[in-house]
């Protein structure tokens, strides 16, 4: 078993920007421990001389000509915004006041 604790889940929640409830910390700790315990077996066969595959296609740097083409208008781009002001996305404060 991977030994995932309630504190580990709280830490993962902070990294992943999830404000987890106390109840969730308990249930996720158990479930993540089970899942990680089960998937850890990948290391049994992943030996040194096997190269990793990140993608099914052997693609690198797909290029296209840099030409001007139609895109969303500001109004369209803002159409789903939770809040907007002066043709911009309005967001909560990012830096502290002081």
């Amino acid at each position, binding site marked *: 078993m991977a030994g*995932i604790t309630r504190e*580990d*889940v709280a830490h*993962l*929640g*902070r*990294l*992943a*920007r*999830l*404000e*987890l*409830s106390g109840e*969730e910390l308990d249930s*996720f700790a158990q*479930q*993540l421990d*089970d*899942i*990680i315990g*089960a*998937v*850890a*077996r*990948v*290391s*049994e*066969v*992943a*030996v040194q001389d*096997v*190269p*990793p*595959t*990140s*993608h*099914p*296609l052997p*693609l690198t740097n*797909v290029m*296209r000509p840099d030409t001007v083409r139609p895109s*969303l208008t500001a109004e*369209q*781009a803002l*159409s*789903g*915004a*939770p*809040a907007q002001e002066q043709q911009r*996305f309005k*967001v*909560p*404060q*990012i830096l*502290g006041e002081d």
Partner: protein
Amino acid sequence: MTDIIKLTAAETAEAIAAGKFTAVEVTEAHLARIDAVDEKVHAFLHVDREGALAQARAVDAKRAAGEPLGPLAGVPLAMKDIFTTEGVPTTVGSKILEGWIPPYDATVTKKLKAAGVVILGKTNMDEFAMGSSTENSAYGPTGNPWDLTRIPGGSGGGSAAALASYQAPLAIGTDTGGSIRQPAAVTATVGVKPTYGGVSRYGMVAFSSSLDQGGPCARTVLDAALLHEVIAGHDPLDSTSVDLPVPPVVEAARSGDVTGLRVGVVKEFGGEGYQAGVVQRFQESVQLLRDLGAEVVELSCPSFTYALAAYYLIAPSECSSNLARFDAMRYGLRVGDDGTRSAEEVTALTREAGFGPEVKRRIMLGTYALSSGYYDAYYGSAQKVRTLITRDFDKAFEQVDVIVSPTTPTTAFPIGERVDDPMAMYLADLCTIPTNLAGNAAMSLPCGLAPEDGLPVGLQIIAPALKDDRLYRVGAAVEAAFVAKWGHPLLEEAPQL
């Protein structure tokens, strides 16, 4: 009028082109069917009545003007709610996108519209396509038309259920670990995961970008091929789109000749956890292929036993990164913005409120697998397993033209049975996952009912990358032989809704 809904897509398009009935009549018949049965099935999250009828009228006008019609013009389709549709809600089965109206069409949406296909609406799915039962939808589960108390598969359960209940002859799905094929298997419909890169991902909400692939769903192999041809092809807006001609899938579906074809049976697709009736129907399918003139070869792909473990590291890792975009700033839900909280706090509150349990589980699993100190052991090892699986496929395809297996180890399980046991749920994708990891192509089609529960069993056909046409060649042969044996398509045996 009631007969219209039972027609195949090919027959429907032909009848419209011949003037037997109009596209508007076809659309109205399907909208009436949705009104009659979808309260029970819950395949649709949103029905776009006006948009569908406008598209149908445009097809009728084109025909009246003597303009040429495409092979699927006027045929209704159910669209998985993961593709953006301009002006029509797109939720991905999540509360975090509730009420969002995309300002643009996905490439698949654009291609369907250009082909005169009538998009009836958006279908239910597991939230962000994460699941095998459609129970993870934030908008409630979908029932399997064979037994409404059972799951229709997932994540594309809505699309499969719409087909199986004659609410649409065509549907679109996406397949990251089996989300087209497993729903097809448990509803007695046909679903194809094309070769990775075969169908554009532009405008398809991302879950696991190196695995996600859109594809066709239908009630017959030929209908799936016709739809495949409409939606496939290179797209400069998707940098992982394959810049090669679309394989001749329609031609293959019309041929259906398997004489001399070498068919592989992989021993790792079997054993513990496989339902007896599923194994029985699979073995009958293998015998049927022999009878049709194919040569059956037994194979071993030892690394396939590690596929599920590798998948549940790779897919959550990519999802944890992809879903970071849901930050409550530019679109979608925003919770807790009371003027005192920081952007970071609002993001965390919104994601907590907007994502369901499975999505949170996978985001955290991915965050864990990618974190420093664990990266090599988990994500790095999973990527190596991916290489081993691809090598096993390469070796297998030196000996055979296609591989066959059961699509899923069991028939449809009851709604609620596995929802609190993630590992049990994940087992539904045991046979479908290797194909996503390697990026090749696969199909599921009906091969009978399991004797013990009378529920549909799917046969999976797997082809090498870019050889999607082989799926249709073999699928058409198997379908024709089974329909001849049964005297009718399997779906005819489904109970009346």
